[in-house]
């Protein structure tokens, strides 16, 4: 099922033409209306009117989160405020908040792009969609809300929080599609178990999860526990919000809406493009945004481009699930450690729960990394031998994956802090 087949299955040559046209127009608009870009172009001696090929993208300046902060609140808007019909603000997970705006056209485009993502995940007008993302300044709730309405689904704008009420409504309203973060989906699944509810009382078919990195193992767990098709979707408020990319039912990577966003994968250190297919930082240029266009925005998200065509028929290329953030990357004893590496290993071990915490400390100038893993009750209380076995297995696997020694401690089920929004997986106690 496609929402916009003509665009989702576009011939690659036609796509390149469209991208070039849109990028040329975008460059003209930012150079004319956004002093920040005019200045940057001048500094880098970039002639926005001289841009002739997508290959020249590398000559354009980057935009960073800090640039957004420096221009707080409206400095990077490309239209006067009276043309802006909506303002959102990033949650500021890692620092001061940033502000983004949308024109009427931007809101329409946004709805059509989240409609694509929802359709690719299986949602149709016959579905009842429960949106358990926060509604408010955060883009998650509103972004998917308008797309789901456009698809014609029945939307329950329940917003985040109040887990028991979520489950009550999910049963009573016969929700068929759940939209939230993957960690919240797991929390819902655990709560169903804990309350002794039967899955038969639910009508769930699909889950669309995003807003935080998650692993394949976590997907399997969610799919099994909720008996749904779980797809990943991606977006960030600085670029638009959800709707930037989303998985189809193949669940083999996220199709990027390339007619609206230009993707690059760069090495976060050298800022040069990585060889095709290699892991790096995702950089996005908007092609159609009116109120808040960005040129080469550094997302800090780590992924890689999948060049191979997808069996679903979409010609829009895919990115692999986000495996972490450049600023989540821990440097422990000089080694780069991504939380996703640790997560993948923990999920493979029998008897562990999908909840963990990574703690980094520094003792006598030496980094120490420990992982706290929840295990099921029976193991935690009874089986000392089994516990030692699990610890040894995790230790060995982590050592071979990361190349450094990791302390492992098992903790009681539900003793680690649960998230209603984004998971807090890392605690860095080092004073650097």
């Amino acid at each position, binding site marked *: 099922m496609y929402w916009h087949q003509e665009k989702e299955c576009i011939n690659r040559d036609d796509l390149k033409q469209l991208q070039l046209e849109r990028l*040329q127009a975008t460059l003209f608009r930012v150079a004319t209306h956004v002093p920040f870009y005019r200045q940057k172009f001048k500094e880098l001696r970039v002639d926005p009117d001289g841009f002739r090929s997508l290959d020249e993208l590398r000559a354009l300046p980057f935009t960073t989160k800090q640039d957004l902060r420096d221009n707080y609140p409206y400095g990077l808007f490309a239209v006067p405020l*009276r043309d802006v019909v909506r303002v959102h603000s990033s949650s500021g997970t890692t620092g001061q908040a940033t502000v983004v705006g949308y024109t009427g056209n931007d809101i329409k*485009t946004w709805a059509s792009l989240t409609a694509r993502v929802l359709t690719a995940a299986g949602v149709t007008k016959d579905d009842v969609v429960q949106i358990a993302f926060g509604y408010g300044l955060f883009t998650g709730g509103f972004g998917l809300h308008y797309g789901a309405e456009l698809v014609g689904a029945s939307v329950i704008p329940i917003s985040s929080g109040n887990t028991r009420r979520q489950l009550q409504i999910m049963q009573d309203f016969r929700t068929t599609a759940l939209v939230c973060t993957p960690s919240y989906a797991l929390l819902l699944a655990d709560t169903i178990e804990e309350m002794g509810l039967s899955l038969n009382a639910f009508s769930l078919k699909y889950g669309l999860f995003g807003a935080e990195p998650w692993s394949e193992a976590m997907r399997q767990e969610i799919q099994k526990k909720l008996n749904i098709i779980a797809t990943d979707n991606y977006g960030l408020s600085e670029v638009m919000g959800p709707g930037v990319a989303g998985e189809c039912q193949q669940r083999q990577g996220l199709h990027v809406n390339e007619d609206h966003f230009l993707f690059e994968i760069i090495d976060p250190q050298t800022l040069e493009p990585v060889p095709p297919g290699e892991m790096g930082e995702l950089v996005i240029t908007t092609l159609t945004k*009116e109120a808040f266009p960005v040129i080469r925005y550094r997302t800090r998200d780590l992924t890689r481009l999948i060049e191979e065509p997808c069996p679903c028929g979409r010609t829009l290329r895919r990115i692999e699930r986000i495996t972490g953030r450049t600023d989540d990357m821990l440097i422990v004893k000089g080694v780069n450690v991504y939380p996703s590496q640790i997560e993948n290993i923990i999920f493979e071990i029998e008897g562990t729960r999908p909840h963990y915490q990574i703690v980094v400390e520094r003792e006598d100038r030496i980094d120490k990394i420990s992982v706290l893993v929840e295990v099921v009750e029976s193991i935690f209380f009874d089986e000392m031998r089994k516990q030692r076995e699990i610890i040894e297995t995790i230790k060995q696997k982590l050592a071979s994956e990361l190349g450094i020694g990791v302390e492992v401690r098992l903790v009681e089920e539900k003793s680690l802090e649960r998230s209603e929004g984004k998971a807090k997986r890392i605690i860095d106690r080092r004073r650097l």
Partner: protein
Amino acid sequence: MLKVRNLESGYGKLRVLKRISLHVNPGEIVTLIGANGAGKTTLLATISGLIPARAGEIILRDREITRVKAEKIVELGCSLVPEGRQVFATMTVRENLVLGGYIQHKKGNREFLRELDYIYELFPVLAERQNQLAGTLSGGEQQMLAMGRALMAKPALIMLDEPSTGLAPLIVKNIFAIISKMREAGNTVLLIEQNAKAALKIADRGYVLETGKIILEGPAEALLANRDVQRAYLGRDLARP
């Protein structure tokens, strides 16, 4: 159908088109709007081969036509209806159409007559006046004749330069209705208009041209809703006290 990339052209020392990239998909009506002097007519003249391109490329049906001669471009399937009609005033309506169908005529009489029937169906007034001298037609009728004459070549792409210029509002409405019908009949249209609102209403997509550069591209309805377009081209004053 048509792809234009980084096209530059002009007259003498005057650089009119600075870097134009646009495309037209088969079966679409695409409109290019812009103020007087933005370069709209120059663009059509360059695509048709009447003015040489200085840089960039023009691709018609996967074939590069950037340096192809004007008459050959018509043969390749791209016809221009110039601004101000320019019909042959001392010839009859039918003779004008026959001239337009010169290329089709070479292919055989039957094809040619079928095309003539299509034109008379699209523009019934031309059928009524087929034996009248073109110079005696009204402005609106001459515009229809010019469009009919271009269609006689069975172009894959028909380019219309300001078809509404100098016509009474009612006639303009009629002309735009006929352009919509042309799309339904499978024609692909690149329409250049100062009457931006009317053009965007019948178009699928549009481009905004300003001083030789494309500054905006999008679905026609998005351009109609764009505040900059409204302020500059739709005559809507959005300024508030």
